[in-house]
């Protein structure tokens, strides 16, 4: 099979670029810890309200962990609990969320907090809230007739 000289150059350049790109995201993910949310813990979706930490939705101060607070959300059609929460500016927070019924999304608009909530699984993401302001949480996975009404609000305050 004959490959034109220019095509060889084009492909070598393209593949080299690809390798650099994959290395960058690989190092970022595995060395710097910027993994996509991939929590492996499970939960009984019918008993969410009685199980820690989901029996206490909202912002909870924690000691002796890599983060200062745990921000706990429970989703169900078509709302999040809590419906609004204040977070101190600069706080390092582990966001934990799960669903009591169908699949929901959990996207804090304007941030990189964006994860799927699936029945039976806990989703979590560690982040630092370093910008003040109001951040809208929207359900971005279709969950039924009220999907577009499902939201909450994180207020990052000084």
């Amino acid at each position: 099979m004959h490959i034109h000289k220019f095509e060889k150059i084009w492909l070598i350049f393209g593949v080299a670029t690809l390798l650099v790109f994959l290395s960058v995201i690989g190092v970022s993910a595995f060395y710097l810890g910027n993994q996509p949310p991939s929590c492996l813990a499970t939960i009984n979706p019918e008993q969410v309200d009685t199980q820690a930490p989901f029996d206490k939705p909202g912002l909870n101060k924690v000691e002796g962990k890599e983060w200062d607070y745990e921000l706990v959300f429970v989703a169900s059609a078509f709302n999040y609990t809590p419906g609004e929460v204040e977070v101190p500016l600069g706080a390092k927070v582990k966001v934990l969320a799960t669903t009591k019924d169908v699949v929901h999304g959990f996207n804090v608009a304007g941030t990189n907090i964006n994860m799927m909530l699936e029945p039976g699984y806990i989703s979590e993401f560690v982040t630092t809230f370093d910008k003040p302001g109001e951040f809208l949480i929207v359900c971005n996975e279709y969950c039924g007739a009220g999907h577009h009404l499902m939201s909450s609000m994180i207020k990052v305050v000084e």
Partner: protein
Amino acid sequence: MNAFTEKVNKIDRRDAKLGMAHFYVAFIGLFLGGMAGLLQTLVRSGQFTLPAGIGYYQLLTLHGVVLALVMTTFFIMGFQFMAVSRTAGTLTNKQRKTAWIGFWLMTIGTVMAAVMILLNEASVLYTFYAPLQAHALFYVGLTLVIVGSWTGGGAIIMAYVGWRKKHPGQPSPLLTFMALVNTLMWIVATIGVASTVLFQLLPWSLGLVERVDVAISRTLFWYFGHPLVYFWLLPAYMAWYVIVPKIIGGKIFSDSLARLSFILFLLFSIPVGLHHQLVEPGIDPAWKFLQVILTFMVIVPSLMTAFSLFATFETFGRSQGATGLFGWLKKLPWGDARFLIPFIGMLSFIPGGAGGIINASNQMNQVVHNTIWVTGHFHLTVATAVILTFFGISYWLIPHLTGRILTKAMNKLAILQGILWAIGMTFMSGAMHAAGLLGAPRRSAFSEYGGAAQAAEWIPYQIAQAVGGSILFIAIILVIYIFINLAFFAPKGEEEFPVGEAANIAEKAPMILENWKLWLGIVVLLIAFAYTIPFIDLIENAPIGSKGYKLW
């Protein structure tokens, strides 16, 4: 070689009828799905509410099912039958009968699914979203569409095998080879969606089992969901590689490399579905990253394709006396809709492909996952690159099959249609990309989210989407008008089915490219490598399953 079959350039009337049956369904689907799309953009502008108790998500389900599954599958099956009939010879009676059985299975399935959607028994979107639970007949209908496409695929495999038996030691005709690759990829990919429907969703919706494992259902769906987009794309590549060179009067850059790129798509289309599940719980991030790497392997055949196409264009332009770095561009037949419309599609695939790389980039996916950016992305790829190419194909294939011609007036109208599409899509897809970066969610009706300041920023973009959507719908009306003209009213005549020749006709394609035991073996190995452990993890650590919900 059988000189007779090589010389016959006109598709047999019986085969033509088979093709047209598929295209009637496809274009009815285009109209219904396009109408739904228009209404969705109007609703999302906040200026319009749906009449007669129609639900936004009912409409969205219709839009997705009819365009992503029905319209595309019917068009592709029809086009591939015609490509095989043209290049490997008229179908045998047995092959044609098999193809017709496939057609009727798909049509019955489509009607069943559509009725359930219209009765509001199935507003679960085409991606299913268990534990939302649709009526069992919706799942049965979609199963019939898949089984029908397997039956039709069987006819293509039979035609390929028949040709190879008659021509031992020779590489198959390029278009037939490509149709076969796409068929094999489709069959392997649809095993995933068929499994979740037959073994999980159907028994569950019938009440035979109480609970469904959501994570496994999703993983099986996305095992199918990504190769689905390559199933749409490869027929467009068939046109770009083989048909467009003939239309401009040039040659195929390299027959062997075209085959090689299709084989690479076959290998790397399937073991990649986890990149749709990057922000989902329950899947180890190392396996996600592995599938991200496999996803990016398709960049290699994509680069090969881009090179080949533009090499064909440049070689042709220079053969016509073009000089300078870009002089060859002037020599291309810009006034020919059969070239211009697919060419606009090719251009849109450049930002479309780049956006796809962003979406699949592991942790970068968090920035855009399930925002309307993603909707903007696939409206550039499938709803521009692929669909414009399908329109470009229709403008010669429909008259070829009906014994009519594409008149100058219709050619002009087709060019107008292509330009309107480009303008409308620039507005709609551009605004979707921008709003998505601000966090606006996809698959959502109009909402002010309790007066949130961020949500207010999204609304101007939603109005721009409605403007774009309206322009696109005008273009769809033009397409339908041209289709009806070409099917029933255009003057009688002979419209060519263009099939390109390779630039270096003496170079025979390596026979290893037709060694299906080898390629399918590698396909199975790659799938086993990418999916075995994630599936074992999901099964071993499975939480209690979910009961069904009907929340619409």
